[in-house]
């Protein structure tokens, strides 16, 4: 039976201090090592903090081992696989909200956040460039997919990773808490939990969500990181608002059993979707020219 011991490090990064945040990562990695964690996830922008604004260029790094923080994390990845968030600068000086997956001293995958929220309290597109792909990737634990925060508010993003072969989705975020009601849970927490549970159910995938905690510029980050199994059931959840390391053992064999009962992946028709989308896009192109 294939087991995967995962950890979700629900941390509160220091805004704009890569060095201090790197230390925070290394401490959590040590803690996770004691608990035999094989894959440890950190939240969105875990190396930099979230409300960066004009700090973006000053905390940016290339997604290579020439970046000192990444070099240290690559060394740490000899003991367990790591997923963390940072500001990536490309060769032409564009900046991205990126997430890197490291394993055994190698950078296995980098995802650049595609959907940058720029509405309400969010202003990401003012400072950052958008990613342009959704790609699953192979690891020693199977094929995984990574998305960052707003990415997974778009139903097409997890779907694309699912079609690309991801059986485990790693979702990381810096989700600000908001929405008061008589319920003991903030509206934003409720929505994110609901959609993650929905993805797990519809995709028959493991869905892991690592959210940060802490306060920046009046925004509170609510934590409450979750793991949902391929049957849509909650496997484990971290506390709201508090720093914590959530560790759980995933029985990856559950995916096979669930898909025997519920062969949604087998019956899915991406070709049909593709045909229909192509038709709609062609028609909307015609429609917009006619307007």
């Amino acid at each position, binding site marked *: 039976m294939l087991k995967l011991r995962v950890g979700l490090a629900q941390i509160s990064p*220091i*805004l*704009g*201090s890569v060095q201090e945040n790197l230390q925070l990562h290394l401490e959590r990695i040590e803690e996770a090592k004691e608990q035999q964690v094989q894959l440890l996830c950190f939240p969105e922008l875990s190396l930099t903090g979230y*409300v*960066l*604004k*004009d*700090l973006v260029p000053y905390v940016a790094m290339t997604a290579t081992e020439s970046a000192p923080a990444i070099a240290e994390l690559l060394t740490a990845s000899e003991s367990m696989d790591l997923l963390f968030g940072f500001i990536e600068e490309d060769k032409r000086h564009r900046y991205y909200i990126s997430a890197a997956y490291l394993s055994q001293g190698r950078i296995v995958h980098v995802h650049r956040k595609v959907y940058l929220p720029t509405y309400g309290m969010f202003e990401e597109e003012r400072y950052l460039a958008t990613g342009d792909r959704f790609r699953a990737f192979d690891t020693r634990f199977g094929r995984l997919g990574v998305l960052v925060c707003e990415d997974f508010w778009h139903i097409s993003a997890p779907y694309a990773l699912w079609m690309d072969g991801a059986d485990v989705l790693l979702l990381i975020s810096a989700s600000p*808490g908001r929405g*008061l*009601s*008589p*319920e*003991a*849970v*903030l509206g934003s927490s409720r929505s994110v939990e609901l959609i993650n549970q929905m993805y797990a159910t519809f995709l028959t995938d493991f869905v892991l969500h690592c959210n940060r905690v*802490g*306060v*920046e*510029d*009046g925004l*509170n980050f609510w934590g409450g990181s979750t793991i949902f199994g391929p049957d849509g059931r909650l496997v484990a959840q971290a506390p*709201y*608002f508090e720093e914590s390391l959530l560790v759980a053992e995933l029985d990856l064999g559950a995916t096979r059993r669930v898909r025997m009962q519920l062969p949604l992946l087998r019956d899915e028709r991406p070709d049909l979707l593709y045909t229909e989308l192509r038709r709609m896009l062609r028609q909307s192109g015609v429609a917009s020219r006619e307007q």
Partner: protein
Amino acid sequence: MDITQRLLLNAGVTRRVLVAFLRRELERFGFRKAVLNLSGGVDSSLSCFLTAEALGGENVLALLLPYRTSVPESAEHARQVIGLTGVSSKTIDITPMVEPYFEQFQQMSDVRRGNVMARMRMIVLYDHSVQWEGLPIGTSNKTELLLGYGTLFGDMASAVNPLGDLYKTQVRQMARAVGVPEAIIQKAPSADLWVGQTDEGELGFTYAEVDKLLYLLVDERYKPEEAIAAGFDPKFVETVVQRIRASQFKRMPPIVAKVSRRDVGHDFLYPRDWGT
């Protein structure tokens, strides 16, 4: 839709967010202490309870700053809050500070006099902030901020404000949950800047009414005509919309005339919590 229901909040989760906010936003700048002006009204009482919970009563200084016409009940209520929260306190009469100024301008309106008093209290607050080595905590709620019902650089001044996103009716719910005495929650809200002043008398509508309208206009993004269709009096809607618009300047830092490539205000945009 029963809008009153939409203004109900879960006190437990709200309290958790606000207390963590206070603790973190002070600690990150190296502060463990705080100071606030305690009038004995529901807003400052709630701020006092939350701040005491975040930092410990011994780290909070509550300032009672009466003027000669202030109603004695205010000080009595403030003293109850001090007793319940265990905060330190100091009473400073602002009468001898503001009277010499009033004497120079005999014809001052109530509003002008009230503004002077509110700003005098701000001076005392910020002065004690240095002496006490604690940050000034705000007491303005969302209703006041949206209506511009406050004195700029007076009672609107603070370093961190835990109440700014709570409507007045939500402040009352929170106050009840944290243990603010019922007499403070029930009494007619008043800035007590002149004899007989009440917020609702001066505004011309009740907080219960206006909070529902503000909720629709601001939180739910209703157009004014949609609010009218939802049952609000057109005149009332117009008054409130106009108040929000006319007071926008009070909710912003002073506007800077841009002449360089990068100026403070338009494109020098760092987070306040930079490096913390």
